[in-house]
């Protein structure tokens, strides 16, 4: 048997799940899509005493597009990537989801699991940072709303969620009508975790950039790119501003070396990918009613 022994519960309501989390706390793990947790169980890298399977909590699986986009944490990545409401509100999301793993992974993996797992090479934490998303965390004691940056901080494979908290909802504010996006990543093969990637959302007033939000992944942790953003706001769209942003992105990026590439190489990738993403953003308008 691959995983170590655990007790198993399958709650059917949020309240029931929160009660189990309150009872078992740090000894328990929430099981969502299992596409990150089950490999860790199989390797016995995770040995929770208690597994709380939330696949039966139907009220965590929804997409609602009245004003802000609200997405239940158990929404599968396939449903997220194929939702017309999501594509209409934030077309960068399906562009990013298409790069996550493979169909079989996306059929089970969830948006909440992707954020809670917070792999530093995962697409969604960086994309949702660029979209200024916030999440709802609930425990038996109440609920709080946490911005993506505060959820992730500088962490990897960990978040600021408490052991007794369940991530229940992701809320993304509506995009400005004239916003557009670019999404670029570099992976060895389609579906592999990326070595580096950039999500860029810009708003222009004619040709001047009025707002820029860039998120990067593939370094030590997901992050916004403030120097790159500062280089863009107030500038005209075009090569000069994009080159400055690329250099700023490389400076901001918390690069890291591993068997797949050196820190220097990843920083170079971030520079190039930022320029490409911005060119994509300048070339096609998405979001809002653009």
């Amino acid at each position, binding site marked *: 048997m691959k995983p170590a022994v655990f007790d198993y519960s399958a709650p059917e309501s949020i309240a029931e799940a929160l009660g189990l989390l309150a009872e078992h706390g740090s000894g328990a793990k929430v099981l969502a899509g299992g596409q990150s947790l089950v490999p860790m169980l199989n390797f016995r890298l995770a040995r929770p005493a208690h597994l709380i399977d939330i696949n039966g909590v139907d009220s965590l699986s929804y997409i609602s597009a009245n004003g802000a986009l609200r997405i239940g944490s158990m929404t599968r990545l396939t449903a997220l990537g194929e939702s017309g409401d999501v594509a209409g509100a934030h077309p960068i999301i399906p562009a990013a989801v298409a790069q996550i793993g493979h169909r*079989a992974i996306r059929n089970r993996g969830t948006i909440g699991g992707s954020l809670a797992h917070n792999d530093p090479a995962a697409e969604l934490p960086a994309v949702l940072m660029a979209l200024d998303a916030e999440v709802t965390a609930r425990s038996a004691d109440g609920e709080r709303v946490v911005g993506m940056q505060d959820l992730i901080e500088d962490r990897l494979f960990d978040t600021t969620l408490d052991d007794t908290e369940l991530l229940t909802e992701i809320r993304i504010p509506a995009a400005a009508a004239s916003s557009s996006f670019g999404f670029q990543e570099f992976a060895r093969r389609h579906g592999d975790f990326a070595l580096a990637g950039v999500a860029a959302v810009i708003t222009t007033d004619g040709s001047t950039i009025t707002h820029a939000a860039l998120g990067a992944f593939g370094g030590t942790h997901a992050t916004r790119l403030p120097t790159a953003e500062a280089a863009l706001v107030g500038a005209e769209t075009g090569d000069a501003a994009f080159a400055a942003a690329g250099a700023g992105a490389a400076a901001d990026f918390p690069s890291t070396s591993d068997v797949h590439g050196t820190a220097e190489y990843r920083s170079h990738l971030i520079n190039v990918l930022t320029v490409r993403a911005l060119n994509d953003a300048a070339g096609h308008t998405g979001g809002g009613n653009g």
Partner: protein
Amino acid sequence: MAENMSVVLNVNGSGRSVSVEPRKTLADAIREDLGLTGTHLGCEHGVCGACTILLDGEVVRSCLMLAVQADGAEITTIEGIADGDALHPMQSAFSEYHGLQCGFCTPGMILAGIDVVSRNPDPSPQEIREEMGGNICRCTGYQKIVESVQAAAAAMSAEGGSA
């Protein structure tokens, strides 16, 4: 040891009750408790695709699910796709176009191929490569697998698209 749980697995059209520990993966239950060893295990952490099955019609990795999570679901394994002795068009195409050598990846490849064609009846070689990138083969070099899936897609369209 956690107590065993009783689970009904509807595999290839027949419901079978098994008693499993919660930690048992669906792949292990299919192989060990149901004796359906056509579902292969390569990596047991989601990266090779050998254990691919259909769960309620969707491709999933059976090594990344617990058997207890599949209670009541409809499961299709490689043993369930032929019609008696008549091979499924995807199987026939793999045989005819040499889409397999050792055969270890083949059950997963065939189920993934069926899934691709069910969503895209006329996939291009590029689309097949992208869609099936999660299924690893150490023998064929993939060219023959891509040809097999294309041939099967044509055969399935000719048959009226029935999967």
